[in-house]
């Protein structure tokens, strides 16, 4: 079937099959390979994208069901040149090792931060709890996101 998606700001139309996941369409048809395929079962968050304003694991979304929707991937968050403040924060704080989980974390953090002016550390940790990392042990990821949030002018409240 044919579907239309507003992908990172521009409408696109393409043919998919009924069984295709959104992750498959993004990576293998559209070559937007920033979105990663990890577990394929909704457990790791590597495939996180923003669908109509909310984060989802694209490995569990059937593309046929989101005809007409708006989707933001890591490619839509990262600027053409340079890095988004969240990405800069992660790099500067050692929050990236193998980097496989990084796009998913950035998408979750971006969605969380763009919806509020201030947050507590507990809220931030909960917002990132659907993303797994095998390398860093999370502490540096959280520190990196906090650094990015500060650059974005967000305030951190006490828990």
């Amino acid at each position, binding site marked *: 079937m044919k579907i239309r998606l507003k992908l990172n700001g521009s409408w696109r139309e393409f043919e998919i099959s009924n069984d295709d996941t959104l992750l498959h369409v993004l990576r293998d048809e559209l070559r937007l390979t920033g979105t990663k395929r990890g577990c394929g079962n909704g457990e790791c968050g590597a495939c996180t994208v923003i669908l109509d304003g909310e*984060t*989802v694991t694209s490995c569990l*979304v059937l593309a046929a069901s989101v005809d007409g929707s708006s989707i933001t991937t890591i490619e839509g968050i990262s600027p053409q040149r340079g890095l988004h403040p969240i990405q800069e924060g992660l790099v500067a704080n050692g929050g990236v090792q193998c980097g496989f989980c990084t796009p998913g974390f950035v998408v979750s953090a971006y969605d969380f931060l763009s919806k509020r002016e201030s947050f507590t550390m507990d809220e931030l940790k909960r917002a990132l709890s659907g993303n797994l990392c095998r390398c860093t042990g999370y502490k540096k990821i959280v520190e990196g996101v906090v650094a990015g949030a500060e650059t974005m002018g967000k305030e951190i409240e006490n828990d």
Partner: protein
Amino acid sequence: MIKRFLNISDLESLLKAKSEYGSKCKILAGGTDLVVRMKADMIDPDTILSIRNIDEMKGIIKGKDGTVIGALTSHTSIEENALIRKQHYPLYQGVYEIGSPQIRNMGTLGGNIANASPSGDTIAPLMVMGAKIRLMSRSKERLVPVDKFFKGPGKTVMADDEIIHSVIVPAGFNKKNSGFIKAGLRKALSIAVVSVGWSLKDDKLTLAFGGAAPIVTVAEIRKDCSAAELKKKVLNAISPISDLRASKGYREQVILNLVNSVMEALN
């Protein structure tokens, strides 16, 4: 292979399609159970009825017999709703515990109920509040009390042409007289090992046990009953299994510990 994929955007078309395709079709709501099963080759539906665009099945409103929650309401919307937190505290705690932010954004109340997992985190909360499930088909509509809805793991009283339209939950369940606790292996992304929902009305304590029998089960006891009687009633109500996540004895003990922590909080 999905032969037919229908994006449905109104209730009437859904009921019509459900009566036409019956057992050959599967409803797709958030997909967090269905797509996982399809990928694991556990099911291979011929027709998918995708309902994510049926707005009239989303939302939370105050009705005269309680709060009406549309089956397509996401766990995130339930968690963020003030009425739920004030009047249906166990459900707030139940959805708070589900999976991860992404899973809570996608997953729906109707999907959690229809899936009929003994560890579905909305079920014990709905049981202790005496919720009713509104089922609809093209020809009729009926209300089923949640404790009469489940037949076994993955099995419910729903007929092939029926859908869950909404859930009606009596109000008055706050932090002081009700709750839900879950003992999971890991905070995010674990399906509960076991869980306990509870509510207190006058002297009567209603307990519901998740992950402790083929379906969520309920026990009613007096608040001031003896420790021995309490233990007996709880163990009678549950029949946990041993599997790779935990043994039967471990599950029984964790349930008893959860119940004890409820009793302590009450006294």
